[in-house]
């Protein structure tokens, strides 16, 4: 049980705020689009992940409950 980051790749416009606010799990490729570590978000980072989700200008990032 935990939370995982899900991204809507069509909505994502490469703004990059997620990478600024959650560099432990998100890095940007050569064109500014996020590469996200697929694992569950560690408990210590959940609050930062929520802020990253909130900061996305196009609501492309989501936190989803996972079963694993």
């Amino acid at each position, binding site marked *: 049980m935990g939370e995982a980051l899900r991204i809507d*790749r*069509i909505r*994502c416009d490469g703004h990059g705020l997620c990478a600024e606010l959650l560099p432990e799990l998100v890095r940007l490729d050569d*064109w*500014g689009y996020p590469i996200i570590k697929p694992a569950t978000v560690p408990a210590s980072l959940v609050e930062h992940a929520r802020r990253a989700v909130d900061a996305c200008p196009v609501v492309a990032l989501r936190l989803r409950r996972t079963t694993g």
Partner: protein
Amino acid sequence: MELIPLGPDAESLAMHRQRVGPLPTAPSGQLIAELEASGLLGRGGAGFPVGRKWRAVAERSSGGAVVLANGAEGEPLSLKDRSLMAARPHLVIDGALLAARAVGADDIIFYVGVEQRAAEAALRHALAERPADVRGRARIVKAPAGYVSGEESAAVHFVDAGDARPTTTPPRPFERGVGGRPTLVQNVESLALAALIARRGHAWYQGLGHGRARGIGLLTVSGAVNHAGVHEVEFGSTLSDAAAAAGGLNGDVRAVLLGGYFGGWADLDEQWSLPVDAPSMRARGLALGCGVMHFLPAKTCGVEATARIMSYLASQSARQCGPCVFGLVAIADATRRLAARSPQPHDLERIIRWGGELTGRGACRHPDGAVALLQSAVQVFADDFAVHQRRHCVTIAARARDAVA
């Protein structure tokens, strides 16, 4: 031969009934059980078990489901679907009708490529031969030309909104598809085979095939063969058997493209005895996909062939996701530079790195497929790529040598 011969004319309803008998009247539960027992795998490229797909849609349907017979055939090298629809439209229609009964659908859509005139004409004519209640439930929708318009969410999106670009999934069409209803998107060859299995039972299909493989299917064989075209094979026969079915090789061949642009290259010597069968090929890291087999003549440079394919795939991006738009274009441009023997200093490294970063970062599997093709090329044509990075080409050198020999 079950599906072959294909053509030259479309069979009439009478010829069809004479050849395979009337439409079976088995109830939906039994149909789905037969398909599951037969082990029939989808022939659109993904190879998903057909029975399981029908069951998934049936479970979510309360009578208003939709069947989308997918004949868009976006793979440029593939001809089997249009040939099948053009020659045996009634078998495809039977498959769609059985699917509609099995999943509880009252809306049947035949999704045919806009440029496939013969297939469309044959289907129209065949539907006109059917009774009114069938005609009332079925319609033909012309898929726009383009590589991704046959992707299942793109097909649904086009029917709903006239936009043949893939959408974000979940939900997948079997949950929410056309008009928000559970939709069965099934390749036309899969439907044709289902129509045969419904008549003859799962044991008939299981009885076909060589070795541990089961069943039959259509391949589109092209390139350095004597009789390029659509051929039927029993799964489990080898790659050499497939070449023989196409009249044998007509020259030196080093590599073969398996599964179309969504598949990958394979070294011919290594894979000459490869059993042609989706599970066996997947176990070897290869793909049966939509059944394309293109034998590349040895006098054609593998890097050039790959560069042309990558440029095509980059141009066919739906342009909805940054990684695909920018990444695929960058990879295609770098591959083209390599093919032209004027690469930038780190082009080969770059395409490998970008490829690794691109997989899984689009809304659909288009970039993944392109990267898989590139990775297979870099492996099979490893020496050629290295030589091209040093601004030479082995194939061109060999051609020059042969010209003066």
